[in-house]
């Protein structure tokens, strides 16, 4: 009798009955592999790990219930219909019946995914939770060139761009943005919507490389779902702030476009709507400037709006924003939103040509700033006297206004992450800015903390008007120092370095002291022991068996009675900790070497 003999009439049990391999699933569903993939992507079905892999280790297993879930999906039937319809068209074409083929093509059956979205995300909050990948993908495709060969259509790229702008407009308008980080891969944004942290990555606004070893079909299937999802999410969030969605395509507004008064009345009528739309228009307009070549038609209406905005007085957007903000109930804003809203309050920014405009146009209003740019349709010109900061990213600045400060774009991002207005000295034109630090890092006590992070921390404390205990020995200058900080809210960098060093030294001293104390305690014990045993000549060398051994023993002995599983886990964790420690150590070592090199240079 074989080992896995099952008598006739007895049903399968256990993992064999619960899971099926992919090929079994395909056979069962009677679909092709590509269609199966598509279904899995759209329905969010993923393989599972059975406890026992009945068919072998190299198979992918799906849960039987998942497959049954796919089986009852109406989309399967729809896809089948579409396939037969395609065959019809093909037949007509091969018979040179072009009329029929064209007629058939116009009536091609389509499908919608809204039901699927509702099914996968029964609550709005679920959708928000899963939005990270969606946003990153949509933003990436918004930056991709349309390629016929890979079936990346212009229409879809535009749709992605529109959706991403809508999302950004909402985040910016409602001041939901929390963290920004410029990485080599692109710019990371983190927003907090309905208590959910949503993080997404936008690529740098440059020509993207399209590698060959990528199956765009799969990506486009994902994109198809994500586009629909984001559209519905956008609708929901726009709805939540009483703004009509989609925001631009209002023919009435277009008709009103000629009359400024009528427009302002329209603004008054539904106070929030125009703000968002104009912002959105501004965003897309900036976009247009960048690539006028392909999306002139699509953004026609937006362009009209932007022109309209252009006709407004220079300070109109700011005034409007204030008006809208007054109208919007501040009572529902939490503490953080308020803080974000007022970070760039009463500041006027102007963007030079070479800075990443799209990003800054999104970010600065999100933190309460007013921003304009060089180019057509900008709310105000470079010569505006009210501008407080001009953001430039060039080696030298020719003409300079004395009423404003010229800073590199990194300053804006660092300010946002630190939630304070940082001193601009280090970010001046032509200088190498201080390191840009990730706001996503959470420091453990033993982690390596970059120097600039310490500086920022101190500045934050100063801004909060707290007296941070200064490191080093308490002296007169240290007592004075916080006062200085309060006065200037600025700390010199060299000073900061010094301070950090002093702190380090103190820590070292403390540790040394502690060690000594420990040693003393142990030494006493040892001494007592030796006192007791001095009747007989005793191998003192052995008695003084290193205290390290004792510590290790103490650690070991508790693990004696523990089960093997836990012991292995403990060991693995120890290894992990060691690795982490090694990494930190490496960073510290590099830092030390750098400091030494610097010292020897000066």
């Amino acid at each position: 009798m074989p080992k896995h003999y099952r008598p006739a009439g007895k049903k399968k049990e256990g993992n064999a009955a619960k899971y099926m391999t992919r090929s079994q699933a395909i056979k069962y569903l009677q679909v092709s592999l590509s269609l199966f993939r598509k279904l899995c992507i759209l329905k969010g079905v993923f393989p599972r790990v059975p406890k026992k892999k009945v068919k072998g280790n190299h198979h992918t297993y799906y849960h039987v219930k998942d497959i049954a879930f796919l089986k009852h999906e109406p989309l399967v039937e729809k896809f089948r219909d579409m396939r037969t319809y395609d065959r019809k068209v093909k037949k007509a074409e091969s018979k040179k019946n072009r009329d029929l083929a064209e007629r058939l093509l116009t009536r091609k059956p389509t499908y919608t995914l809204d039901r699927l979205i509702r099914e996968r995300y029964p609550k709005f909050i679920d959708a928000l939770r899963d939005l990270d990948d969606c946003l990153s993908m949509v933003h990436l495709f918004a930056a991709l060139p349309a390629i016929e060969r890979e079936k990346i259509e212009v229409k879809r790229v535009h749709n992605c761009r529109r959706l991403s702008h809508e999302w950004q407009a909402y985040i910016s308008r409602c001041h939901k943005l929390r963290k920004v980080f410029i990485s080599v891969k692109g710019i990371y944004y983190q927003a907090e919507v309905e208590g959910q942290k949503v993080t997404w990555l936008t690529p740098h606004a440059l020509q993207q490389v399209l590698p060959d070893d990528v199956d765009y079909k799969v990506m486009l299937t994902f994109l198809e779902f994500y586009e629909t999802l984001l559209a519905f999410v956008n609708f929901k969030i726009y709805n939540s702030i009483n703004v009509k969605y989609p925001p631009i395509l209002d023919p009435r507004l277009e008709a009103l476009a000629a009359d400024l008064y009528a427009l302002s009345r329209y603004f008054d009528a539904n106070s929030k709507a125009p703000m968002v739309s104009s912002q959105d228009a501004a965003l897309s307009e900036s976009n247009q400037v960048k690539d006028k070549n392909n999306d002139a038609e699509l953004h026609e209406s937006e362009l009209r709006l932007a022109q309209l905005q252009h006709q407004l007085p220079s300070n109109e957007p700011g005034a409007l924003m204030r008006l809208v903000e007054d109208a919007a109930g501040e009572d529902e804003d939490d503490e953080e939103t308020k803080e974000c809203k007022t970070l760039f309050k009463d500041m006027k920014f102007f963007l030079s040509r070479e800075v990443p405009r799209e990003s800054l146009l999104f970010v600065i209003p999100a933190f309460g700033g007013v921003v304009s740019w060089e180019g057509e349709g900008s709310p105000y010109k470079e010569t505006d006297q009210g501008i407080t900061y001009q953001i430039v990213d060039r080696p030298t600045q020719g003409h300079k206004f004395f009423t404003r400060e010229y800073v590199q774009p990194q300053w804006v991002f660092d300010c946002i992450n630190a939630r304070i207005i940082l001193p601009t000295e280090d970010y001046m034109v032509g200088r190498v800015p201080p390191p840009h630090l990730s706001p996503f890092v959470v420091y453990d006590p033993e982690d390596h903390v970059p120097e600039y992070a310490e500086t920022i921390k101190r500045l934050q404390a100063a801004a909060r008007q707290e007296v941070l205990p200064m490191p080093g020995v308490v002296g007169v200058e240290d007592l004075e120092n916080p006062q200085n900080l309060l006065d200037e809210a600025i700390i010199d960098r060299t000073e900061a370095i010094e301070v950090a060093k002093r702190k380090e030294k103190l820590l070292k001293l403390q540790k040394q002291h502690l060690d000594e104390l420990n040693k003393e305690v142990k030494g006493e014990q040892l001494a007592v022991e030796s006192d007791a045993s001095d009747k007989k000549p005793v191998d003192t060398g052995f008695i003084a068996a290193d205290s390290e051994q004792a510590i290790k023993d103490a650690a070991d002995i508790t693990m004696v009675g523990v089960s093997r599983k836990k012991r292995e886990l403990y060991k693995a964790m120890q290894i992990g900790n060691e690795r982490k420690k090694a990494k930190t150590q490496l960073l510290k070592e590099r830092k030390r070497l750098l400091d030494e090199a610097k010292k020897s240079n000066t």
Partner: protein
Amino acid sequence: MKAPKSKQESKSKEKEPQQHVVEEEDPVVSDSDDEDWSVEEGSEGSLSDSGLENSDFTDNKEDLTTSDDAVSLDDEDDDDDVGQDSQSESGESHQGVEESDSSEDEAAPRNTIGDVPLKWYEDEEHIGYDISGKKLKKKEKQDKLESFLERADLKNWRKIYDEYNDEEVEITPKEAKIIRRLLKGKAPHAEFDPHAPYVDWFAWDGAKHPMSNAPEPKRRFIESKWEHKKIVKLIRAIRNGYIKFDKPKEEPKVYNLWGDDQTEKAGGLAYIPAPKPQLPGHEESYNPSLEFIPTQEELDAYQLEFEEDRPKFIPKRFLSLRSVPAYEKAVKETFDRCLDLYLCPRARKKRINIDPESLKPKLPSRKDLRPYPSTCYLEYRGHKGPVMSISTDPSGQWIASGSSDGTVRIWEIDTGRCLKIWELDESVNFVAWNPSLELPILAVAVGADVYLLNAGLGREEQHKIEELLRVEKPEAPAPDESSKGAPTVIWTEDEKQKGIRLKHIKTVTSVEWHRKGDYFSSVMPSDILVIESRAISVHQLSKKFTQRIPFKLHGLPVSTAFHPSRSFFFISTKMTVRVYDLLKHELVKKLETGLRNVSSIAIHPGGDNVLVGSREGKLCWFDMDLSSQPYKILRCHKKDITSVAYHRTYPLFASCSDDGTAYVFHGMVYSDLNQNPLIVPLEILRGHHSSNGRGVMDCKFHPRQPWLFTAGADSVIKLFCH
């Protein structure tokens, strides 16, 4: 062919496809050739096209065809005409083609018969009539011979008889030329260019008036009958809904999907959300701190590593934002993420984000479990070889030790003074004090012998002990016993050591006393023994009597133990421990250790718990009331456990191993049956050096104090106190 042909016939012949001619080059030869000329007829069509007078020339041809016979009759006039014509043509050879045409037009045909077949006049003298009604006479027929001769004359080859006009015609060189061209399928005149560019002379546009000024007729606007029928059919189809019209394409509608936000349960299995992508750290910054950037040496070191070991992301620093290039792996990474999302199996795993210290069991503080031996207090030195075994005196004053150097020593515990030394010939395997206080007797296993030695302690008991340690002269072995085979043990009195010597047949490894001090057992774990039950024998001191255990052994015996209060006997083999009832002669319990190589056992003074040490370094605690499986397995030692021991009064137990350590545990057994024993590891005792791969050989607790003695392979005995 001979018969004269009418014009119609000739015309019908025109439509014949042209035939290819080979011998037409030579006109002289071809002259007499019939076929040759018949071919010429075929080319008439092209001749007429070229603008020459059609009928005349055909006639000429026909003449040519029938020239051999020259029989046919024809009109005179015509004949003349052709003659004239040919003459004029020859005369005006320098003139254009058109002029020759016009000259031909002038000459009227001489024939007056009209369009009637020549056949009708075949047999007549005349051919037609002139204007006054007189018959026109045919030309006089030549004699056949004459005509032949005439034809044979080469000079006359140009002459052709025109039957229709009834005359002789001479072909001019020009005409011959034309004929030759026609035969080649060319245009008759060399000047004519058949491929001249087409000139459209008609002015199509700019016409002031339409070609037809009639109004568009009504019928052009009205369907025909059949069309009407078709339309009616379509209308009916539309009305009945057989034909559907395209609706304007709708954009997918966006609406408030989560409007009411009712809690609809997701279909299918529980959704496991995909893990979010890792958030970037400092090193991914476009301008990270300098310490995050690897040095050149490190970068080179990466190159030496395997590709999969190399870091996936190497930090880079850009001095300004404008110099940051597009990330080349952006699409690829997104694609990989997509693959992860739909291809990676997902499972919920508990995130082990705990402090590793929390994995350690919550044990009561060691301070509360004091006293226990923790520090080395005394060392007993004197042995020359590894101390194999030690045993404490029940009074707690003395300790005996046996070493492989062949000596057994007694030490005073408090002072470390060596009280007594026995020199034995072989290495000592085991020493054991008699547990009764009155009998300070030492059982020593040396090689294949067990010695019972008088420790020489206590004044009052000396006499009794000497009595006890006297054996009568060994009687001659009983004949019945010899027949069975040699007895395993022979009791003899040893004069030298002043004790009893029990001769065994094999090496004795351990000796265990019964609690009352009368019985003791010895183990000979030699695998050559045929009868395994011989390996363990129980001796009675008072009767000097040895008996084998009445049980079958399962596997090689390792050690034995007596139950501290009941008549149970523990025998441990390599895999299991069996508990026998000595009174009832039956197996009480079998303890499954799960170990492969048991080295020692110890019984808790309460009698319900057993400690088993193994050569794998594992320590098993059995609660015999609970189960026959180990209650707890402690993996403490890295090498063989050589010995385990319970303290008689304190809740302590210890194990020692070849790795040079001894572990001390707190092992509390509660009288309440519901409460499981509490086991707490307390201390690792170090200090013995390993020699020859062996570490601590034996450990024993002090009978009253929480002290532990350890015997090391480094020939030192240590006392650990609290």
